[in-house]
C-alpha cells in the first residue's frame, strides 16, 4: 500500500438504483484502486473494489487488433451509417451526458435506440403510459411512510440499502422511531432474503399477482370477494381483507415492486393493476408506488429518451422522426427478427443474457461495443472500445430509481476515454456522414447559405 492515499467524501455509488451518495472512498492513488468504501453495502463495496485499470488493454480494437481511437471512431461511424437498420442498446450503466449523445446518434443515423429497460421495467413504462402513477422521491418514504410493501422484489439482495437508508429502518420526520413506526409487508412467490424484515409475509401463487391486486382493488372499492380467491391466488380472503384495511388506514403508504411483476406472466397488466390500486387508494389516504430499478442509471436513460423523443425506450427513427413500438423496436425483437444489421452496445453485455436467436444475429452483423472490461459482447464485437467507469473515473449525472438526479465524484483517473467522449466523437462523424440523407434534398445548397 502506498503513501499516496486520498479520501473522497460523499461519493456516489452507481451499482444499483439506490444510487447512495454518502460513500466515503479511500483511494490508493499510486495503484489506482479504491481500498475502502465506507457505508457502502456488500454490492457497493464489490463495485468499488473491483475496478482496477488494465493498462494492457487497448483503448480501441477492430476485429481484435489494436487501432487508434480515431480509426475506431471512423469505422464505427461508417458501420452505423452504412447499415439500413442500425440499433443502439444498453445505456443503463453510463451517465446521462453519454446517453444524450447516444440518442443524437440514433436520430442522425435514422436508427433505433433502446435501453435495458426493455428487458426489465419496460412493462412498467407501458403501464405508466396507460394509467399514470402516484409516486414519490425516496425521502418521502423515509419521512412519512408508515406502510411499506415490497412486491415481487428482493431488496435484501438487490438493493440492500433500500431498507436501511430509505424505507425501513431509517428514521424520518413523521416516523421518528424508524421501523417501529412502520408496518412492512412482503409479497412474493417464495421465501427470500428479504422476508425476515417484514412484519407480514404474503405468499402469492406464481403468476397470480394480477388476480391478487385485482381482488385488493375490489375490496378497497367495497365489493364482495368470494373466499375461493384463496384457491386462485394462494392468499386467504382474511389476509387480503387485512391488507386492504391496512392500506386504506395508513397515513402514507408505498409499494416498491420489481421484476416479479414486470417479467412474470401479465407484465404491464400486473404493473397497470398495481398503479391503479395505488391511485384508488388515494380516495382513502395518501398512497404511492415506485419500481425498484436495478442499474445505476437505468432511470436516467428512460428520462433522456423520453425528453428527446417523447417515448421511454424502443424508439426508432427510420422515418426521420421518433416512433415507439415495444415488440418491434425493442432490442431482443430487432435482433431475433433479423432486422438489425448493425448494433452498438453501450455499457451492457447482451451477449451474456439475451435469447439464443438474438445472440446468433449479433454474431452475423457488425457490432460496436463500449465497455470498461472485456465481456462476451465485446469479444464478438467488430469495433470494441475500452472505456473509463462512470462514477469511478468520470463525472456526470445519474438518476436514482426515484428520478432524483445525483452528480458523480470520480475517485481516480483512467487512461481510457469515457462513454461520453467516444459517443460524442462518433456522433460528430455520423452527423457529417448523414447530412445528405437528412432533411430536404437541397440540403447542401442550404448549408452554404447558412
Amino acid at each position, binding site marked *: 500500500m502506498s503513501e499516496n492515499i486520498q479520501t473522497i467524501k460523499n461519493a456516489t455509488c452507481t451499482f444499483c438504483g439506490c444510487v447512495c451518495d454518502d460513500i466515503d472512498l479511500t483511494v490508493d492513488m499510486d495503484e489506482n484502486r479504491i481500498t475502502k468504501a465506507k457505508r457502502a453495502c456488500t454490492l457497493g463495496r464489490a463495485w468499488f473494489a473491483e475496478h482496477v485499470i488494465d493498462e494492457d488493454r487497448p483503448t480501441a480494437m477492430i476485429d481484435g487488433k489494436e487501432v487508434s481511437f480515431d480509426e475506431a471512431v471512423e469505422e464505427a461511424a461508417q458501420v452505423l451509417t452504412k447499415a439500413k437498420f442500425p440499433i443502439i442498446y444498453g445505456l443503463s450503466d453510463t451517465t*446521462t451526458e453519454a446517453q*444524450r449523445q447516444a440518442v443524437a446518434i440514433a436520430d442522425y443515423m435514422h436508427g433505433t435506440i433502446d435501453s435495458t429497460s426493455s428487458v426489465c421495467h419496460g412493462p412498467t413504462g407501458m403501464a405508466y*403510459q396507460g394509467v399514470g402513477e402516484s*409516486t414519490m422521491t425516496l425521502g418521502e418514504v423515509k419521512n412519512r411512510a408508515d406502510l411499506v410493501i415490497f412486491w415481487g422484489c428482493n431488496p435484501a439482495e438487490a438493493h440492500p440499502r433500500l431498507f436501511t437508508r430509505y424505507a425501513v429502518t431509517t428514521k424520518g420526520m413523521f416516523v421518528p422511531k424508524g421501523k417501529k413506526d412502520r408496518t412492512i409487508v412482503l409479497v412474493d412467490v417464495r421465501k427470500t432474503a428479504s422476508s425476515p424484515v417484514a412484519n407480514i409475509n404474503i405468499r402469492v401463487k406464481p403468476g397470480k399477482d394480477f388476480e391478487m391486486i385485482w381482488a385488493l382493488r375490489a375490496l378497497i372499492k367495497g365489493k364482495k370477494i368470494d373466499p375461493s380467491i384463496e384457491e386462485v391466488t394462494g392468499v386467504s380472503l382474511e389476509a387480503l381483507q387485512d391488507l386492504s384495511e391496512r392500506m386504506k388506514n395508513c397515513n402514507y403508504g408505498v409499494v416498491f415492486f420489481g421484476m416479479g411483476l414486470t417479467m412474470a406472466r401479465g407484465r404491464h397488466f400486473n404493473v397497470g393493476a398495481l398503479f391503479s390500486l395505488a391511485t384508488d387508494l388515494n380516495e382513502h389516504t395518501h398512497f404511492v408506488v415506485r419500481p425498484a430499478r436495478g442499474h445505476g442509471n437505468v432511470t436516467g436513460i428512460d428520462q433522456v429518451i*423520453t425528453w428527446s423523443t417523447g417515448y421511454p425506450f424502443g424508439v426508432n427513427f427510420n422515418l*426521420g*422522426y421518433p416512433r415507439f413500438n415495444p415488440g418491434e423496436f425493442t432490442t431482443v425483437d430487432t435482433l431475433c427478427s433479423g432486422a438489425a444489421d448493425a448494433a452498438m452496445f453501450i455499457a451492457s453485455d447482451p451477449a451474456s443474457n439475451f435469447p439464443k436467436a438474438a445472440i446468433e444475429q449479433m454474431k452475423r452483423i457488425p457490432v460496436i461495443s463500449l465497455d470498461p472490461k472485456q465481456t462476451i459482447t465485446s469479444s464478438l464485437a467488430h469495433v470494441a472500445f475500452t472505456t473509463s467507469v462512470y462514477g469511478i473515473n468520470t463525472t456526470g449525472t445519474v438518476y436514482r430509481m426515484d428520478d432524483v438526479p*445525483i452528480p458523480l465524484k470520480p475517485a481516480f483517473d483512467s487512461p481510457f476515454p469515457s462513454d461520453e467522449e467516444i459517443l460524442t466523437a462518433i456522433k460528430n462523424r455520423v452527423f457529417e456522414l448523414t447530412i445528405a440523407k437528412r432533411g430536404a434534398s437541397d440540403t447542401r445548397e442550404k448549408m452554404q447559405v447558412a
Partner: protein
Amino acid sequence: MTSTTRIVNGKVYDPANNIDGEIRDICIKDGRIVESVPDDARRIDAQGMVIMPGGVDIHCHIAGPKVNAGRKLMPEDHKLDPHPETAFTRSGSGGVVPSTFATGYRYATLGYTTAMEAAVPPLSARHTLEELDDTPVIDKGFYVLLGNNIFLQQLIKEGRQDEFRQAVAWWVNSANAYTAKLVNPGADELWKGKGNSNIKDIDEKNDDISPRQIIEAFVTTVNDLGFPHPVHIHCNNLGHSGNYKTTLETMRTAGDKRLHVAHIQFHSYGGEAGKNPTSKAAEIIEYVNQHPNITCDIGQVMFGKATIMTADAPLAYVLRGFTKNKWINADTECESGCGILPFTYQEHVYTHTMQWAIGLEMFLLSEDPWRVILSTDHPNGGSFMNYPKLIRLLMDNSFRKEEMGLVNQKAIAKTALNDLDREYTLNEIAIITRAGPARALGLKNKGHLGTDADADITIYDEMENKEMMFNAPRYVIKSGQEIIADHEFRGDHNGKLLHITPAYDEKIEEVIQPFFENYYSIEFDNYEVDDSYLHDHEVIQTTQSQS
C-alpha cells in the same frame, strides 16, 4: 468571424423604444443590435413585413421532471404529431407536451426566442438544466419552487427573518434559478400528510403557518434581495369557484411591493365553491390596473387538448375526479408536490367556456398591456402553439364574435364579452408578447430592438389574418444567427440559460445542513448544482448580487 446584417424596409414594432410601425433599418453585429453596420453587411429585405423583437414567454412548463412525466404519459398524443428532422435540426415528437427539441424549434416557428419554465423543485434542478440544454434555439431559465419548502417554513414560523432571507438566496443560487416560485403555498403538508386535503383560505393555519405568512415573507425578502423578477405566485384555491377573493387578498398582501401573479385567469372565479364559476374578471383586472406593483400573465384557456401539470397536486386530483383519466402524482421530499393529467377544454362545457371568456375579458379590460402578459400557462390552458389564434382573438373583433357563437351560450351570457369590442393593435401585441414580459422579467437586453439589445428578431409577413401571420414568421434571428429564413430552418442554436446569483452569507449552510441531513435522502454536499450544468449562460444582476 464578425457577422453583420442589415434588415431594411420593414415596419418596426418596438414599443420599449416608442417605435410603432415605422419603416426603419435594424442593424446586427455579433449577436447584438447596433446603430449601424458597413455597407457590405448581409441584407434582409423586409418589404411588406413586420419586425418585432423575439417573443418572450414568461410562464410555461417546458422542462424538468413533471414535464417529462407528462411527456411519457402520452404516447398517443405524440404519435399524431411527429416532429421530423431537417438538415439542421433534431427530430422529436409534438403534441401538447412536445419533446425538448420539438419545444425549442416550435417556439422558434412562432417567433419566440425566450421562455421561462415556471415550476421546478430544487431537488430536480439538475434534471431541468439538462433538459433545457437539449431545448434548442431559445434562451431559457426556470423558477424554483420554495413555497412549500418545509425548512423555509420553519424559519418563517420561528421569526428568523435574516436567516430566511439568506436561505432563500442560497436556495435560488444552489439551483441556478431565475426567481422564487410559490405554488399553493402552505398546502403540501395537507396533501401529503393529512389524507389528500387542501387549504381553503389564505389565513387558514396548518402546522402554525398560513399561506399569507408565507407570501408576505417571500414578497418582502425577494424585494429586499432585488431579484430582477419578483416572487412568481400561483395563488391558493386555483380553479375553485369563489377564488377571486383569495387572489385579491394575495395581491393585497404584497402591499406596494412587486408581485407576479401567474395564470391569473384561473384565479378570477366568482360563485360558490363546488358550484359553477362566474366571472370576476372585472374585479381582478381592476385591482391590477390600479396597482403598478402587480404584473400578471393570463393563462388563457384554449379549446382542445391540454395537459394539467402543476405543483398544485390537490388541484390535479380534483380534476382527475372529473375526468377519471390517467393521473400522475409525484411527491418531492421537503419541497413540493405535483399532479399531472391529460385534459380537454370543450366548447359546450359551461365551465370551460367561462374560463375561456374570463381570460379574454381580462385581456380586453386591461389598461396596461405592459403588466398583463399573454400566456396559456402551457400546457395547462393549452399548448403555446395556440398563441397565434389567441392573438387573432384579441386583434379581430369579428373573428372573436364568430368564435363566441360556437361556445356555451349560457356561460357567455354571464360575461361582459358581448360588450367588449376592443381590438389589440400590433403595438399592443408586441407589448404583451415581448416588451412587457421582458420588462417584468427584468431582462434589459430582451423584448426590444434598441442598441445593445440581444439580436433576437422575428420578421412576419404582414397579413390580414393575424393567426396566419403569427403562425409562420418569414425570418427568425436568434442572437444574430439566422435560424429560419423563408419559413424554413437554416441553422441551429443552443440558446443560453438565464439565472441569478443573489448574495448570501455562507454561514447559512451551517443552519440548513442539520435539517438536510435528517430529512433529505441525498447528501448536502451533492445538492448544490455546480457550473458544469450551466453551459452557455448569463447571470442577470440583482440589486445585491454575489461578487
